[in-house]
């Protein structure tokens, strides 16, 4: 112990209260406090407030009072809510599968050595970088049957009939999925690429020496090594797609006749535009139990394998 510390002790400035910082666990918790405060302020408070709103009859500008599960009960008989619920599940499931597959393919291709590699990697990130409102507006223009460049190409070069992309219930939802997939692939691709680059090349060299085929290398080395990052990306993407608002709102705003409503847009319609903020909160929270189970399952699974 140095003379300076001895001096501090002598003056009573380094008693047990200060020495507690020398212990790992208390120090760890202490260092977590600022983060916990920030999380509490920006995540827990809005979330808990949202839950509170969902069990009140609050309207915009009126706090309302506790009504229990009445909002949830009320929405059970709402046909648009049921449609939105089904759309949200379909939208998330389909786009996640495509984003996963195409993102993995993109990562495997980007992991090869080829000319202008850095430029191509940066360019492929563009859909993720561009503000989603702008890119969705561009897609809206491409899908509009009156102006559609997609239809024009199909008609003039491929001699295919025009498609009313946003004008029928089935194609409008498919259009939403196409744009979401287009936008989401770079996130998957770049995340997987980062994972691929951490896999030691010695593993592949050893596999090649043992006579493993490309596919065997992919199944036995790439996929297992990529699994942790794959699961986390999948989890994040699923949560974000469940709550996607900007894209469906800008592309179709629930049209035609609410057939492309997802829970986030319907909650906005009722809660913000219609003023029934309590019901809107209930609509947006309805997926919370399901999402919680998915998240818990994935995280527990990930931890147990580790």
């Amino acid at each position, binding site marked *: 112990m140095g003379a300076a510390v001895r001096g501090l002790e002598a003056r009573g400035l380094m008693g047990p209260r200060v020495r507690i910082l020398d212990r790992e666990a208390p120090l760890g918790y202490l260092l977590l406090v600022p983060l916990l405060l920030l999380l509490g302020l920006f995540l827990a408070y809005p979330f808990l407030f949202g839950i509170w709103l969902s069990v009140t*009859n609050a*309207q*915009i*500008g*009126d706090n309302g009072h506790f*009504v229990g599960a*009445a*909002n949830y009960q*009320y929405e059970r*008989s*709402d*046909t*648009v809510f049921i449609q939105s619920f089904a759309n949200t599940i379909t939208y998330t499931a389909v786009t996640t599968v495509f984003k996963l597959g195409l993102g993995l393919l993109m990562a495997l291709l980007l992991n090869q050595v080829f000319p202008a590699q850095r430029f191509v990697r940066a360019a492929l990130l563009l859909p993720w970088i561009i503000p989603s409102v702008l890119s969705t507006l561009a897609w809206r223009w491409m899908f*509009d*049957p*009156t*102006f559609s460049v997609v239809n024009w190409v199909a008609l003039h070069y491929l001699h295919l009939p025009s498609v*009313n992309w*946003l*004008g*029928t*219930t089935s194609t*409008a939802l498919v259009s939403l999925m196409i744009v979401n997939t287009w936008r989401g692939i770079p996130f998957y691709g770049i995340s997987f690429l980062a994972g691929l680059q951490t896999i030691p090349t010695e593993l592949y060299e050893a596999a090649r020496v043992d006579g493993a085929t490309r596919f065997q290398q992919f199944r036995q080395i790439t996929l297992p090594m990529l699994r942790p990052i794959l699961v986390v990306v999948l989890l994040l993407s699923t949560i974000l797609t469940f709550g996607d608002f900007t894209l469906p709102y800008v592309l*179709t*705003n*629930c*049209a*035609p*006749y*609410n057939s492309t409503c997802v829970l986030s847009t319907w909650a*906005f*319609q*009722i809660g*913000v*535009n*219609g*003023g*029934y*903020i*309590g*019901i809107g909160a209930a609509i947006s929270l309805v997926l919370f139990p399901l999402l919680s189970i998915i998240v818990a399952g994935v995280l527990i699974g990930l931890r147990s394998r580790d």
Partner: protein
Amino acid sequence: MADIRDITDYLAKDDWSRRRFLQATGLVAATITAGPILEACGGSTGNGTSTTTAVGTIPKPRAGAKIQLLQWNSFVPAADAEIKRQAAEFSTANNVTVTIQTVSGDQLQPKTASAVEAGSGPDIIQMQYGWPHLYDTACLDLTEFVNILKAQLGTVNAVNDAFCKVGGKYLATPYCQVPNAWSFRTDYWGQAGLTDFFTTWDELASAGKALKSKSLPPIAVSLGHAYGDAITMWYPVLWDFGGREVSSDGKKVTINSKETLAAVNWAIDTFKNQYISQNTLSWLDPDNNQAYHSGLITATLNGASIYIKEVYTTATGHKYAAVTNNAGMPKGPKGLESLNLIFNHAVMKWTQEADTAKAFIAYLMQPDNYTKWLNASVGYNAGPFQKLTNADIFNTDPKLKPFVGVVATGKWPGWPAQPSKATSQSQVQFVIVDMFAKACTSGDAKGAIADAEQKLKRIYETPV
């Protein structure tokens, strides 16, 4: 109003008599009771301004005050430029700062809702349609102020009046209408062998048939969730065939009727036979403008912005200026109604500068200023008060007359019921528009009406 110093000076005088005693006590009683009465009439701000507004006079702006007005980006940018010029002029003349914040039309409501929920934000908000009814708890009572304006400017248009008045009180000041009429290509019209523009809904179908037979661009109206164009089209179709969504007391849903069936069947026939465009089910408000300016449609229902862009906006090149004309709304078997986009100004309860806000609104509504704004907007807007309806532009350009014409037949969503939270809810959920859209694509009129009826019953008869 006499203040307390006047009274004490009066009482300090000697030479008391019974007459003077009665005068003094009367003065005290008047002072005590006048405050609450004025406040109840909206004369007192109660929001940080120290002076009480005298009955019958426009409040004075407070020197040094800063206020903000939130409004949409007009489809005619010159109108916004004129408002900003007037705001600067008012600011300089009164030593205040007025800021105009503009957002796109579909962002105005989320912004307004956020401000109302937070209890803070712009001092004045431009309220679309029935928002004063939705956000009644956040709007100052402007009854006294509107009565002053009425005394100066004449009667208020019935639609503005219905939207502004909540429970007998004015929670917003009537500001303007954005009349919706038809803009059409006269060259295509002639090529199809048509002479006059349609005056009935059946004639619209006939005109569409003629255009189709010559392979000319179609008549196109939004069947999507366009807060302006889709609503202004399909409510009048319903009304003109005699259909109503709810009874006049706003309690009983009446959509399931033979009149509604007739309206929906007309829409199905017109759509299925391709007498109107098939591509409009996802159209938002700017889409028909874009289609018209691209030469892809022959006629559409819109504010005057299409005509203005073609004829008055030099930067866009007058592409179809010589072949663009306008016409009013057609009628149906049961009448001729129209629906226009409406804006009113609400002074918000959280403002600390209610008097300055009122003074600024009064300044905008001064006939000279208002007329300058109407002329700058080249017929896109129409005045809500009797004395503000006749802008020069409507007289100098006869092609704009149809836009003035549709104001008189204007109604509001939910009519004949008075505007309410329920009528607003029905409107923002696009129940009527969706009924027509669903019927047009499925061909099932009764199914679409039943679906709308179920939704309307939830809104009007069994709200949560």
